């Protein structure tokens, strides 16, 4: 009996020691406690985030948390990438981005699968945090973030206008609004340019397009960015407004549905899927496949036209030219692409890299081989 008691006491003491050591280590040199809210606020501005919340953020933002890959791309485009201190795992694995901004490799990852790890976030000590719409839909997450005292902004969009606002918002917060507005101006100019020429094509003559997103049968639903930009680019997107199968947050179409829609053109954003569709016996009866009108979309910093891609204006130009080559014979995608990455990412691309981007092989791969 005595032996058992002694053993228990020993275990308790050991546990205590271990927990003290662990607590001491995880605290790090940065205090886990922020000064009470309001004490540090020297100068602030108020902004309205994508969910309509009015948020007070410091004028000088020097430490940025990007808990949404899209925001990381925007902040990098705005030239504030060096200020990123917290990211999501996906950004760390982005070869091109980490090459441009090595600091991302060292940044904290205070979020996994949409759930925020508050202590890790506080430890990274960002001045503001950008979170994605899905995270904000969880009340628990919102409450947690409110407790942290770190101003957080919800970044979310369902169409072009909202995406432009999201870019503008990130510009306002990071003190790079001028560049954000320049980007949005270019974005709008691309749309105007395409729309002007497309006026000649009546609604019932627009090309019927199926858009395959990453996987052959994954596609676009209504009220999404791709549904909007494809319409702007003159495509009649067959899957929008249809019954789709929702798995996690992705929409899938059935093979019979696709055959029923019988699109004239299939746009594919993942390398390899176009070959799969062209050579599959299940897709063989589609007009698009018979006429070899299955096109691989370009892939730059992200896949052009992907729901979470910043390169939407480029996707619009490319798609319009692909669907209506005669209307847009004056549009030179090579020089346009070159201009885009030079203007907004300060990237001087050699011709062969531009061609690789346009062929859908992407900068991710080509960047390494170009050296």
């Amino acid at each position: 009996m005595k032996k058992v008691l002694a053993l228990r006491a020993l275990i308790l003491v050991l546990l205590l020691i271990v927990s003290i050591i662990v607590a001491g280590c995880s605290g790090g040199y940065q205090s886990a406690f922020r000064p009470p809210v309001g004490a540090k606020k020297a100068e602030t501005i108020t902004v309205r985030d994508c969910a309509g919340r009015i948020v007070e953020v410091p004028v000088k933002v020097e430490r940025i948390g990007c808990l949404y890959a899209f925001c990381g791309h925007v902040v990098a485009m705005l030239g504030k990438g060096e200020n990123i201190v917290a990211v999501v795992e996906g950004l760390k694995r982005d070869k091109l981005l980490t090459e441009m901004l090595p600091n991302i490799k060292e940044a904290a990852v205070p979020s996994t699968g949409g759930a925020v790890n508050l202590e890790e976030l506080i430890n990274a000590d960002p001045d503001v945090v950008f979170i994605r719409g899905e995270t904000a839909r969880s009340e628990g997450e919102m409450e947690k973030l409110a407790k942290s005292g770190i101003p957080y902004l919800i970044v979310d969009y369902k169409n072009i206008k909202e995406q432009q606002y999201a870019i503008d918002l990130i510009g306002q917060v990071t003190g790079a609004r001028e560049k954000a507005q320049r980007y949005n101006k270019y974005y709008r100019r691309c749309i105007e340019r395409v729309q002007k020429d497309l006026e000649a094509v009546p609604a019932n003559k627009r090309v019927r397009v199926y858009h395959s997103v990453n996987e052959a049968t994954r596609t676009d639903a209504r009220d999404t960015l791709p549904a909007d930009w494809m319409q702007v680019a003159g495509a009649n997107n067959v899957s929008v407004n249809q019954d789709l199968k929702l798995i996690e947050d992705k929409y899938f179409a059935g093979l019979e549905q696709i055959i029923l829609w019988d699109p004239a053109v299939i746009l594919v954003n993942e390398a390899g899927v176009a070959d799969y569709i062209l050579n599959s016996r299940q897709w063989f009866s589609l007009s698009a496949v018979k006429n070899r009108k299955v096109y691989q979309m370009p892939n730059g910093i992200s896949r052009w036209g992907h729901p979470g891609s910043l390169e939407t204006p480029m996707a619009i130009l490319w798609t319009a030219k692909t669907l209506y080559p005669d209307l847009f014979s004056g549009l030179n995608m090579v020089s346009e692409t070159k201009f885009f990455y030079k203007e907004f990412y300060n990237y001087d691309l050699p011709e062969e890299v531009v061609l690789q981007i346009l062929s859908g092989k992407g900068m991710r791969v080509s960047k390494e081989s170009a050296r």
Partner: protein
Amino acid sequence: MATRKKVFYILLILSPLAFIFLSLFVGRYPLSISSIVNILICKITANPCNLPDQYNSIVWEIRMPRAILGALVGGALAISGASFQGLFRNPLVSSGLLGVSSGAGFGAALAILLFSSTSYTYVFAFFFGGLAVLASYLIGRTYNTTPAIMLVLGGVIVSSVFSALISFAKYVADPYNQLPTIVYWLMGSLATARYHDIVIGGIPMAAGISGLIAIRWRINVLSMGDKEARSLGIDTVVNKGIVIACATLATAGAVCVSGIIGWVGLVMPHIGRMLVGNDNKVLIPASLSLGACFLIFVDNLGRLITGSEIPLGILTALVGGPFFVYLLKKTKGGGW
């Protein structure tokens, strides 16, 4: 008597074929019955059809492989469930409940992680599926008063550990290349079934199924208990090993083509038992046939109920869950 037996076996073979045939008439694309019949006749008589290519493609490239694969998967799950139930003398187990499905799923995910390709998935799925049964069995043996419940409990533990490992594998996977592949494999549905899948997944399933059919009478002997089996001159360890290997092989094949589908392996053998009784010689082939019919039926139901297909797992769980409660009540947690 002999003719009755013959009729019974013919029925067992014919009913899945009838279900496959009927499911050719179910789908989103509005095809008239006469055009489907026309297409079938054209193919059989090797005459060119003057119907659009789409029709041919829907019937032969989409509906047919889907139905065949459904039959194979359902049959494989049900027959391995029946064998496990006989082998462990436990009405409450199946591949899903013993953790074989999650183990196989984890094996597939691990193979994709390690080799960044899908070529080793079957080997890994089979290996980890086998490991899972073994672990469940060993856990079940730790406490001997209520072996039936303990085995189920062991299976619950093992399958939740493997589900956790699957989530972990997804977490560490490269989000651009590996993660989509893993999710795609685990989600697996019959919706995109191709003949290619039937060939690749069909080999392990067919091997497992034929193995179980070939030694089904030994399951009868094994189910009497180790002592009795040995007194009849049966090497229990070797035979148990063969049964487990075949059942795991069939399950791993099914998981690799269609993801984890629960409950078929538990419920179908019991319905079989209600129809043909406890004799594994008859029950094993009956389960195979019933499982095949059931999965085709559920898959068609999922296609019919809503425009956007309901995933198979949801429907099988809705049927299987309540049935399991009924079984628990009936067997009171003991063996039989």
